[in-house]
Every structure is written in structure tokens, then in C-alpha cells.
């Protein structure tokens, strides 16, 4: 399968650690339901204390998942610019408490999603969505898009190595016309080459009688532990929501 280096840890897939931890062995549907319910509720919380509680739950999930914290931290760092932008904007108009609340709320949403992405085989994740009756055209598009992104990344990595092997050290600045030209050509070549590869992959799919669906052959079953995770997260989310709505004080 097409590979792309991610995170610089010698691991080649986003979900490379999924097979090593208990969280990765749970049914994707249970994880999707539990985490999405939790994230949606966390996103609508407005009470500062409740937002902090939801962040604490998210951090507990990070630690309990047994996924390498440094790995998740690196993934989180990719979201930091967006989180900071939102938090600083809110801080400027609403004060420090609102700013921190925004940071906590977005982090409480992002962290469980990172755990879900890193702790579930990407294919299982999309297959889980399909089994939750998300339309086949969407899940198949997601799978093929992921494949294409990996392909682009692989071609980019190859071209980058080829450039370095021939002494190219990158454009020094935007006025470095030669450097910019090489980078532009590389971008064009990456697109052309990945288009060719995508064509080959499409032919490969057709050879195997591909229609519209990519679902696993083996059917997994939702076991008790899967149900408990989904139920646990949904219960926490439900409690937070009821307190937020004033049903429980």
C-alpha cells in the first residue's frame, strides 16, 4: 500500500500505533459514536468549569488510550496555529477567561479526534463510518482521497530526495528565481506523476471489479468492551450537557 512518512518516527502511517494499543483493537463504530457524541457536546459547552471538565476527560482519554503521548503531541502541534488563532481572537474581544475557554474547548474537541485518528486503522475508520450507514459514495471518496494524499506525499518525498541527490539545496528566498523555478517544476511534476500513479491505481481497482464500495470482507462485531467505551463517553457527554442546560445543578 502506498506509504507516507508521518511524524518522523520511522512510522509510516498515521495510525501506525493503532495495532499496539488496546484502544486500536476496539470496534471502529463504537469509537466513532462515543467520540463524536463527546466532541459535539464539548463544542457546545459554554460554562467555563464544564469546558475544563471536558478537557480533563479528553486528556484522560489521551492517557488511557496508551498511544504515545509525544506522537499525539506532534499531531496536536499541527492544530495549534488554528487553536491559537481562535483563542487569541476571542481573548482580544472577550478577555482572558474567554480566550482560555476557547483554547480548552477546541482542545477538548481536537484531542479525542486525534486519539480516534491515531488509534484506529484508517481503513477501519472509513469502514466503520460505512457501517454506521454513511453513504458509500462518501466513505469510498474518503478512502480514495486518503490514498491520493499518501500518493502525493510519496511522490513529493521521492522528488525531494532526487533534487537533493543532484545538489539542489532549496530556494534561498522568493527572489531566488532559479530556486523558485525548481520548486515550481517539482510541484508540477509531483502532480503529473501522482496523476499517472492514480491512473494505475484506478486500473488496479477496475481489475479487481471495483464498483463503488470498499468495505471489509470480515465483519467485526461490537463486543461488550466496545459498547462500554461508547456508553461511557456518551454518558459523560450527556452529564455535561444536562448540567450545561440546567437540568442538573
Amino acid at each position, binding site marked *: *500500500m502506498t506509504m507516507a512518512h508521518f511524524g518522523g518516527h520511522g512510522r509510516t502511517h498515521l495510525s501506525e500505533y493503532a495495532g499496539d494499543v488496546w484502544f486500536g483493537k476496539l470496534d471502529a463504530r463504537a469509537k466513532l459514536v462515543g467520540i463524536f457524541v463527546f466532541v459535539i457536546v464539548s463544542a457546545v459547552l459554554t460554562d467555563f468549569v464544564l469546558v475544563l471538565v471536558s478537557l480533563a476527560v479528553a486528556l484522560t482519554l489521551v492517557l488511557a488510550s496508551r498511544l504515545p503521548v509525544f506522537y499525539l503531541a506532534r499531531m496536536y502541534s499541527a492544530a495549534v496555529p488554528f487553536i491559537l488563532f481562535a483563542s487569541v481572537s476571542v481573548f482580544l474581544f472577550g478577555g482572558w477567561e474567554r480566550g482560555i475557554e476557547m483554547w480548552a474547548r477546541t482542545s477538548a474537541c481536537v484531542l479525542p479526534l486525534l486519539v480516534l485518528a491515531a488509534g484506529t486503522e484508517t481503513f477501519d475508520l472509513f469502514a466503520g463510518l460505512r457501517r454506521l450507514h454513511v453513504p458509500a459514495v462518501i466513505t469510498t471518496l474518503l478512502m480514495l482521497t486518503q490514498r491520493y494524499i499518501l500518493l502525493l506525499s510519496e511522490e513529493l518525498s521521492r522528488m525531494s530526495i532526487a533534487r537533493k541527490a543532484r545538489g539542489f539545496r532549496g530556494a534561498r528566498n522568493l527572489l531566488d528565481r532559479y530556486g523558485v523555478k525548481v520548486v515550481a517544476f517539482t510541484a508540477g511534476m509531483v502532480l503529473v506523476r501522482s496523476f499517472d500513479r492514480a491512473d*494505475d*491505481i484506478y486500473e*488496479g*481497482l477496475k481489475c479487481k*471489479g*471495483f464498483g463503488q464500495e*470498499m468495505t*471489509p*470482507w470480515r465483519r467485526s462485531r461490537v463486543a461488550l468492551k466496545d459498547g462500554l467505551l461508547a456508553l461511557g463517553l456518551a454518558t459523560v457527554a450527556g452529564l455535561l450537557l444536562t448540567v450545561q442546560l440546567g437540568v442538573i445543578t
Partner: protein
Amino acid sequence: MKPLEIADVGFTYEDGTVALKGLSMSIGKGEKVAVVGPNGAGKSTLLHLIAGFRMPFSGQVMIEGRPLDESSADDLRKHVGLLFQDPDDQIFMPTVEEDVAFGPRNLGLDDIEGRVARGMRSSGMETLAKRKTHRLSYGMKKRVAIAGILAMDPAILLLDEPTSGLDPRSRAELIGLLKEMDRTMLIATHDLEAAAEIVDKAVVLNVGMLMEGTMRELVLARDLMHEAGLELPPISKLFRVLETMGYPMDDLPVSLDEAVEQLTRVIDREGKHAHAHIHTHVHGGHEDDHKHSKAAAGERQPRDEK
């Protein structure tokens, strides 16, 4: 009815490059044929035409007696299993067994469990069912791709450079696997040595067909080999050198099996010959006896000195 019949097929790329011209050939059931030729000879184009990914500009391709055209391509592709040069282009699922099951499921075939088991067994992957496909070696990925195709049980196997990029052990294993397979096969390859081990017949292609015959007929056609930019298999080269040194050769072997067979035959024949000499001369004198004993032990005299 033959599984594959090609009549006067021509194909030109959009940029005007003529890839195939007036090509006619057929493959009988269970026959293994190699298509050999230099780069740009049209080998891969031919496989893509048979798989229905491109349509010929002229002539006709018949699969299982049915003409291949735009409307029948998807349906006829069920009868054709194409192994790509790069296995990464045809492995889609996260585990070996899932990938092997992918084709049969898409085609709505029955007994998927059995097909997966047979496909994996035929390609020697039965113990690796749960392995992640992206963690496999290149050679293993080739095997998974083959298992995936076999599980679809196609009438014809099309193999595009099956031995390219493989290390010697994986190459030898793959050759053994293909050799044992009782399937109709068309193999596009540069690797004459591998082809000689696997196929019954070879077609030399360079836009048009230059020759059709057995591998031995091919390697004996020196001018044609040169014209097609092909090299003799190393084993044939060795025996050609031996021949110039006076080695008693019946036929030029093109594969290791043939070479072993021939060596056995020659040793058997020449050994008996030497033994007969010993027997004849043993009563005649000690010197003669000594001389022929050495010959029997392997210190052969050149053929013309016997």
C-alpha cells in the same frame, strides 16, 4: 475456442507513437506464453489492451470467444487477471486476506472463504492472512497481488514484468510458483531466463510480431535476438561457451532444468563411454587403465582428443 485470440491489432498513442501494428496471436487453454522485446516494444500496451483498459485502433481482441470492446470490457475483465509491475498499484486493503477477498467480493463470486484460502495457498501466503499489507516486502506484495488475482479465478493471467525489482530469492520463489501453476498465462518480460523456466512458447514483439516459437528457437535466432535487443539467458551463454571449448552438446539449454537434464544425459553417456574404455583396456595394460580412470573421474579430455 481459445481463451485469447488477437487478430491484426494495432494501437497508436495520442502523441502518434505506434505501439502495436498488425499483431496476431492466440493462446490455447493452459498455455504459457512469454512476450519479450525491448523497451517500448508494446508489451505492456498489449496487456492493457487485453485487459480492456485501452481499445485497439484496428483489429480485434477476443476473450473466451467474445469480442472485446468498450461495452464488453468491464464484463470480460472478469476473465482476465492482470498482475501489475508495481504491486502497490493493486493492493488496496489493510490486511492480506482482506485484499485477496477484495476482487471476489466486488465480482459477487461465491465461496469467498474458499477462494481466499486457495488464492493464498497457491501463492504461498496462507500463514500471512492477518499481516498488514503495507508492512510486507516487495516480493511478498507481488505474492499478495497474485493471490488476489487467483482468488478471482480468471481464465487468463496477464503478468507484467513479474520478476522485476525482486531479490534473487523472491525471484526464484516467484518463478517456481508460476511454473507450477496450471493456468493460461501471458507474461510480458525482459527476463528471458525466468521466461524460459515458466513458459512453453515465446513471442518476440517490437511493435509488430518478429517471431513466435519455443524459447529454444528464440535463443538460437541470434540475429533476431540482437534486433530485439535481447540477451541470452546466462545458462545458455555458459553452454555456448562450453560448446566452443568442445563440450558435447545436444541442444542449447535455455533454462536451469534443461541444463541439468542435459548435463545428466551427457555425464551418463560420456561416463559410460569412459567406463567402457576402462573395461576394454583393463586387461590391456596398467597405463591405459590409469588414463581412462582419470577421464571417468571427471578429468575429461577435449571431445576431439577422445
